[in-house]
């Protein structure tokens, strides 16, 4: 799984040094290149006005000459390169739904879009997210319109690949479709590709019609699912390996703000069901691009504290990766033992006990030593000093750091892992008390 940051909201096009440096210090080694830094929806809705504004600010107006994208992005790309930050994924400019119902200049948009795809492919991006194109019509008419556009973009990616530039990988850049919402009189409701059956049909038909068999994939946008109240576990589970990328951010469930995960709290609880998100991605062994998109938070955060924010976001991305790949920690070892004989141990046994059966569990409460718990014998922690080779010790107790210190003090520093039961597949309906 590769962790990326969508840096659009706070990286200045002409002076990106500080922000990209902050990203690097925070731990990011990859970023998503959001092409909206080059041109935005206004360029296609109010073209004359947008052109004038660009000229006044001394910026290139890309719709007038889309082939100059490289020129517009030169400083930014050079800064990423100097800082060792890769750009494996790009996101094409979105036109979405204009609030006042005004129709964008679609021909102009497609000219820019084609150049964006060509540019991203030449740059060496392995995937580009291209949102579907909205229009009125029957399902089949909408698909047919999109089919033509998407196939043209795949053709461009393939042309670049066949020319074999130095950045090209082993296959053409993949075009990723993305789930959408649509505004309905101020209320965001399910939009195009919000239905998994429709997504599967589109992807299968597009891949069938494309020159290259794996030309199209999918980017699961968690925030879009959330504003439509969708069950993210079921969404991910239905799409399985078709998901190449996940756009991860929080919002309040009603407005599509891009916020740091776990920060949008409504009624004392997180407005995104992170349990379903983690469970869903774990259930499909997601191993693609995990794109952290925190634009709304970043745009409103004190600039002085940005390094700390980015460090937190990187740490959160690592946490998601760890949660999604939790079973990988168990796979590493020939044997497993647990530390803790309470609800977390019970949940381990319910979810992983059969696949990764522990030798025993241990607990600091000497009164319980020798007791059988969930099919395990509770031992003294001293037993951990004489374990078979390649045995992982999984702490099943929320006092992780205290127990880790205890183990360190006992001279056990290797093979200590955290287990966590907050986002497991199944739960007991009761909690054991008084343990």
């Amino acid at each position, binding site marked *: 799984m590769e962790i990326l940051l969508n840096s659009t909201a706070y990286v200045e096009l002409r002076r990106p040094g500080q922000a990209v440096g902050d990203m690097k210090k925070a731990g990011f080694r990859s970023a998503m290149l959001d092409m909206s830094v080059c041109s935005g929806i206004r360029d296609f809705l109010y073209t004359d006005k947008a052109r004038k504004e660009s000229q006044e600010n001394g910026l290139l107006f890309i719709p007038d000459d889309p082939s100059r994208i490289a020129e517009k992005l030169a400083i930014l790309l050079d800064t990423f390169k100097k800082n060792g930050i890769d750009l494996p994924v790009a996101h094409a400019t979105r036109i979405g739904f204009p609030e006042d119902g005004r129709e964008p200049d679609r021909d102009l948009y497609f000219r820019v879009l084609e150049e964006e795809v060509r540019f991203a492919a030449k740059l060496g991006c392995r995937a580009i997210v291209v949102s579907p194109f909205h229009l009125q019509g029957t399902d089949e008419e909408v698909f047919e319109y999109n089919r033509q556009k998407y196939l043209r973009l795949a053709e461009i990616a393939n042309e670049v690949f066949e020319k074999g530039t130095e950045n090209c990988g082993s296959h053409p850049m993949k075009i990723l479709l993305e789930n959408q919402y649509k505004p309905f009189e101020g209320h965001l*409701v399910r939009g195009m590709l919000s239905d998994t059956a429709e997504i599967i049909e589109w992807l299968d038909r597009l891949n069938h019609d494309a020159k290259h068999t794996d030309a199209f994939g999918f980017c699961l946008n968690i925030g879009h699912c959330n504003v439509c109240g969708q*069950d993210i576990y*079921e969404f991910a589970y239905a799409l399985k390996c078709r998901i190449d990328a996940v756009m991860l951010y929080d919002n309040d469930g009603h407005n599509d703000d891009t916020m740091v995960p776990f920060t949008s709290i*409504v009624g004392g609880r997180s407005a995104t069901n992170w349990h379903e998100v983690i469970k869903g991605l774990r259930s499909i062994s997601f191993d693609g691009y995990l794109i952290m998109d925190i634009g709304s938070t970043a745009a409103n955060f004190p600039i002085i504290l940005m390094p700390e924010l980015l460090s937190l976001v990187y740490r959160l991305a690592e946490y998601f990766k760890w949660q999604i790949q939790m079973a990988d920690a168990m796979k590493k070892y020939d044997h497993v033992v647990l530390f803790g004989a309470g609800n977390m141990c019970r949940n381990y046994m319910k979810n992983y006990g059969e696949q990764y059966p522990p030798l025993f569990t241990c607990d600091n409460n000497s009164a319980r030593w020798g007791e059988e718990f969930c099919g395990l014998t509770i031992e003294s922690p001293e037993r951990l000093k004489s374990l078979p080779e390649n045995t992982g010790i999984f702490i099943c107790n929320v006092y992780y750091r205290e127990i880790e210190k205890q183990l360190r003090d006992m001279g056990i520093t290797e093979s200590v892992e955290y287990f966590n039961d907050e986002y497991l597949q199944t739960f007991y309906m*009761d909690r054991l008390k008084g343990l």
Partner: protein
Amino acid sequence: MLEIGVQTHNVIMDENPDEGFKLLHDTGFTCCDFSLNFYLKNTDLYKFELNRFFDRSTEELKDFFRPHKEAAERNGIRFHQMHMPYPNFVPGAPKELNDYLVREMAPKSMEICDYLGCKYIVVHGLKVKQYYGSEEAEWDATEKFLDTVFPIAKERGIVICVENIYTGVGRHILEGPCCDARKAAERIDRINEKYGAEVLGFCFDTGHANLVGIDFEKFINIIGKRLKVLHIHDNDGISDLHQIPFTFTKTRENRPSTDWDGFIRALKNVGFKGVMNFETAPVLSSFPEELRPEALRMIASIGRYFADKICASDDAQKLQIF
């Protein structure tokens, strides 16, 4: 012309059902959605509290509801649909309570439904996904429950209707059981085939669908003829308010933020011939008592508006536009 119905909660009182049914008749309704669920409230069940209403024998329950039945007949109101108490499984509750819901509440609800001459009974799916892991496993539990009442449904000619409901984290409402139209359609067909009778149908709840951004038109078109009953009500897209349609707007243009046009188009498209039934009991507590009849009249008028649009021929609609 489609008939118009409304939920009985807050209108029909046990002490004097005549008064309530007369009010429904006088305000323009011919059908009712009997709120049996209020005899065993969900709020109590979630607190593991059981009021023992269903301890009564079937005969005693019939005696209890005889005045309601007679009053409805006297006032020209037909029991078109009713709501079974819910939840029918309470996670973490004592076994005795959950057993009671299956052994007493559910079959007796079916008996009451039959006694009142009611064709449809709406049932909530179990909300146990958190514990069982997936929607599929959750549905299996619902189906296991429904299997206990399907034989009664078949015998009495009752159609049990599952409804799109929601779940949530904090105050953010998310889709819950029966929010996937394709799965619902497949399950309804499979079960009806298994029982060799139409024992299962669908209840589309507009308010619940609106809360989780469901595309009304697309959903209803997939459900098609399996759609048997409606719970029509409106909300702000945030909370389950059960208010009068057309009352919520979210923009300066003040157009309704619920897709009523899509709702009408879809019902017309699937050839819906059922009752325009409103689940709007909270309206009666939010309006002052003096204005309640007017509020009910307004609801009935909206029902007639929907019915007119749904039943109008395409040509007639075009004429109206031009």
